């Protein structure tokens, strides 16, 4: 149950709506029971030929109760749904807040998309928790207790019978439904994800499969997986149906028992016959109200599953260490030192960095090059304290990175990642992320520098920068950091989508601005690196060559050969 703590908290915050909902639900339930009780009593009364006015009163009561019930239902629906939506919003926000300090640690690089969409789905499936798991029993119990209390005024035995029946409806029937269901539920899920994976593989690898003549065989595999899924789904559905039918039968059985017991009691003289019809009608209504109990376990299981997965994701957030207070010296370029640094991503089988040692003097310009997957970006992530090295030391000047406050580090660094985030708003909003004061003229000048002279500050940017081309996004991201005052530049392939000429112009402005600063540029290209003080060549998580452009070309080593291959590339935009 611990997993649902986050839900309980969210529910507590909506207590006003929840109380209103419970009130509405209770009134609606009670009104329903009273309605049928009254009509049963009314009919029975007529046998004794009562005065007409009492009859009028009773029939009016029936009508009023009916309207009260409908109105209370209306309120119940309104408040439960409002509470649910509010909770969902709270859950999202709370979860986002918990995830912030954990990024990017929890999100493994490759599967982050999967994980994230799962998180979104899980939060959504939690919305059923209140509506179908937490709420119904409250109403059922309240209405039922009131009914039992009322019934006990007429016959304690029939009240006992009700309790017996409710125990059966609330525990025995769901238990029978759950019997085997737990196993079953898991199997459907498994089969479903297996089929989904296989279909995805078929579509992604379609061309390869076709050329290798494997389509037929794969298709047959898919069909048998699909048949297995259908069989499991049907088994699960049959289970649920059995539960519902059982509940209906329990309802019937109780009515029947009330009738039989009532008959005995009437003969015995301990119950007035006029109440018999009323009690039978009450028994039917009150158990109908409890129908939600039959499907409750399935939803409960679903919610718990989702909550558990979410909890697992953010568990580390609770034990997050206090941030140290160390800061980088302000207004001063730093030197960087890595000694014996190794790092391995959680789900990867080989280290991303193996025993990397390097020195970057303050105020120097360093380029890191190498094939994709060689560990270039990982170095940047370690420098930004986004990840912690498994081994080795990272120092800024003489301070170990462990002693630095991460927010302070980010404040001091001008960072462009491979994928920059843009949000809905004007260009100006997207440039001025911090409350920094810049005149429009200064902003326009920066836009000129990054070769976007035609953009206006009031131009709209869509969510995720959807209306911008990759090249525009990269230039805007550069403009954004060029407005900042940090003295440490960390740039991850910032110009990979630009053509050569534009790239050189933008970089020239950038290097001019960073003339006295420490700068690390991860580059996808080997051209234009002549101006760098140092080039680090990486392969398989190791720095295999280091030196200036002319040194490396003279060495005729790895860099030289990469350069030769690049020269072979045609249409190299």
């Amino acid at each position, binding site marked *: 149950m611990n997993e649902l703590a986050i839900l309980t908290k969210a529910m507590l915050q909506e207590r006003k709506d929840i109380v209103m909902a419970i009130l509405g639900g209770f009134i609606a339930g009670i009104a329903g029971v009273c309605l049928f009780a009254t009509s049963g009593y009314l009919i029975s009364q007529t046998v004794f030929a009562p005065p007409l006015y009492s009859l009028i009163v009773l029939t009016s009561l029936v009508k009023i109760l009916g309207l009260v019930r409908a109105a209370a239902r209306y309120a119940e629906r309104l408040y439960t749904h409002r509470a649910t939506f509010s909770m969902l*919003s709270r859950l999202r926000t709370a979860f986002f807040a918990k*995830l912030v300090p954990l990024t990017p640690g929890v999100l493994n690089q490759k599967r982050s998309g999967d994980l994230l969409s799962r998180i979104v789905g899980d939060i959504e499936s939690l919305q059923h928790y209140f509506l179908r798991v937490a709420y119904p029993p409250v109403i059922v119990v309240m209405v039922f207790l009131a009914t039992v209390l009322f019934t006990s005024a007429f016959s304690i035995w029939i009240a006992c019978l009700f309790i017996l029946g409710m125990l059966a409806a609330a525990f025995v029937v769901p238990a029978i439904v759950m019997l085997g269901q737990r196993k079953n539920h898991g199997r459907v899920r498994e089969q479903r994800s297996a089929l989904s994976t296989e279909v995805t593989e078929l579509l992604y690898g379609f061309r*390869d499969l*076709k050329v290798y003549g494997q389509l037929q065989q794969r298709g047959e595999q898919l069909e048998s997986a699909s048949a297995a899924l259908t069989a499991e789904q049907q088994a699960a559905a049959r289970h649920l149906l059995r539960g519902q039918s059982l509940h209906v039968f329990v309802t019937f059985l109780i009515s029947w028992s009330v009738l*039989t017991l009532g008959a005995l009691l009437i003969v015995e003289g301990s119950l007035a016959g006029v109440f018999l019809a009323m009690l039978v009608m009450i028994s039917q209504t009150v158990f109908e109200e409890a129908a939600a109990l039959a499907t409750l376990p399935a939803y409960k299981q679903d919610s718990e599953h989702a909550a558990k997965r979410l909890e697992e994701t953010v568990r580390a957030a609770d034990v997050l260490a206090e941030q140290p207070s160390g800061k980088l010296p302000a207004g001063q370029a730093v030197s960087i030192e890595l000694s014996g640094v190794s790092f391995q991503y959680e789900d990867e089988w080989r280290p991303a960095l193996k025993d990397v040692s390097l020195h970057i003097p303050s105020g120097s310009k360093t380029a890191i090059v190498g094939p994709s997957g060689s560990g270039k970006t990982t170095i940047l992530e370690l420098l930004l304290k986004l990840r912690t090295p498994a081994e080795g030391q990272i120092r800024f000047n003489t301070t170990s990175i462990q002693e630095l406050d991460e927010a302070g580090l980010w404040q001091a660094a001008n960072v462009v990642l491979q994928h920059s985030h843009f949000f809905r708003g004007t260009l100006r909003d997207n440039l001025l992320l911090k409350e920094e004061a810049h005149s429009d003229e200064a902003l326009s000048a920066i836009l000129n520098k990054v070769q976007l002279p035609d953009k206006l500050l009031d131009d709209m940017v869509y969510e995720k920068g959807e209306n911008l081309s990759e090249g525009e996004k990269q230039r805007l991201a550069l403009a954004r950091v060029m407005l900042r005052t940090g003295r440490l530049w960390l740039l991850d392939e910032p110009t990979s989508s630009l053509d050569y000429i534009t790239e050189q112009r933008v970089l020239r402005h950038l290097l001019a601005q960073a003339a006295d600063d420490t700068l690390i540029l991860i580059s996808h290209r080997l051209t234009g690196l002549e101006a760098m003080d140092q080039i680090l060549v990486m392969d398989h998580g190791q720095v295999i060559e280091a030196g200036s452009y002319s040194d490396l070309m003279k060495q005729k080593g790895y860099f030289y050969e990469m350069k030769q291959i690049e020269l072979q590339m045609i249409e190299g935009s």
Partner: protein
Amino acid sequence: MKRRTGLISEYMSTQRKRRALLAGFSLALGAAITCQAVLLAEAVNKIFVERVSVSSAAVILGLLLAVMAARTLLSYGNGLIGLHMAADAMATMRARVLRKMTQASVPSSLRGQTGSKVSVALDAVDEADSYFSQYMPRMMEAAVIPVLILIVIFTQHSNSGWILLCTAPFIPVFMILVGLQTKNKAEEKFAQLAGFSGTFLDSLQGLVSLKLFGLARRQQQEIERSSLGYRDATMGILRIAFTNTFMLESIVMLGLGIIALELALQLLVFKSLSFHTAFLILLLVPEFFNLLKNTGTAFHSGRTSMGALRKVEEMLAEATEESAAAEQPEAYEGGLHRMPPTIELRNIRFQYAPGMFGLSVGSLSIQPGEQIAIAGKSGAGKTTLLHLIAGLLKPAAGEVLVNGRQQTQIEETSWFEHVSYITQHPYIFAGTLADNIALGAGRNVSRAEVVQAAEAAGLASVVAELEQGYDTLVGEGGRGLSGGEKQRLALARAFLKHPSVILFDEPTVGLDLHTERILQRSIAELAGQATMITVAHRLYTIRQADRILFMDKGEILDCGSHDELLERLPQYAEMVKAGKGEQHE
């Protein structure tokens, strides 16, 4: 009520027996419901009015219990029939969707998002379930049972029957009103909700940059704000729906109240009614209204299902036109042996879609064992031409001849037995490394053969690093391979196959040096006994080729050796120069 979609009527025609069974069960269920009410009323009448002893009412009580059990079983049976129909329908539908997927042509397999296709095969088919498992049985019950109840009530007391007949039509009318008013808007809202989830997802994905700029807090507020805004908008729509439901329930209650009043008056004032009849009617009326209300719920889920079914239908229809166009050729070897074939292209024209990029190629003949490089700007149609030669795309006009025989006349499997296609992004399937390599052979191969192919492709050093060697799981859920390793795996597949035709899409990105060297060496080795057609991105490859096809805007501008083209085609010279040009900048 609603036009049935083709799939449903098609499926329903195969389900006559089950539908008849459903109708029979519903009729029996109706009888059970009325019997239950009659017996209950009779029992109460005997005990309360006639005051007979319990033992003499025992028969009625026993009968009542039996009828109750029968009613439960009958409604369970109806549900089961629905489940069976749903299971059958889903199985056939999913099988058809999957079959269309495997039989689709390459362009249609590339069209559209993979995610949405998977969702049709799984989610849409699942959603269709409730049409058969809920809608059909409920509708059948609603068509039979209320009529039965109405008949019973009319025979007992026609006044109550008339009241029911007057109030009952309001229920479907209001149900449909609720549906019409909210359905569209609700769908819109659901789309928005999906979009909203998307925003949340985006925020999570952009979290690193947000964090670096110290903006996480602001984004959190944004999420909360838009989330609450969404809530308020949705509540507006739900309020309409709830108000309508309120009206509906009021009508039901009013009907019940009027009948109660009428019964009371008849009993008391006119004395024209017995207690037994009055109580029976009072028991039957809620059953009657409940059944009608169920119809509304079933109608709603039925409509949702139909929407999902339409998605499935669209997908099936799309695939049909293509498979209909492709006539099944006879199994003919086409003179394909281990010897490289002659490949001829004759006035080929191709277009992905009207108004889109088109390709037209005149006559071209590729000799056995020839090395061809296709060069040109990106978007010139290089890969399309490669696909046409491979037979992965069917030309709209003209023909591809293999050894003088039309390629469309050669059975696909026997043609592909002799072709290897090394793409830029070879797909790695979930399975062991050995399985992934063996895929190339398309037959059972020994471990020794796999090892040999892996060695030739320079994969041996990678395998040596792995604890489980060739039995290591790779692909989805397994170990990740780098781009260079994937390329080498594709090469190993080709080595295992001994193809007589090699199609090669040269990598545009820089791989690690080791892979680059292996690529050049191994490709040369493979090309020794085969015709090779390369979409070339490296000058080296172009120089090595016997002939270069230079493409521009979907046409082959010229064809010849490097030196010839350099001399007579300025665009070619320009391209070569631009490649080199960068170093002098």
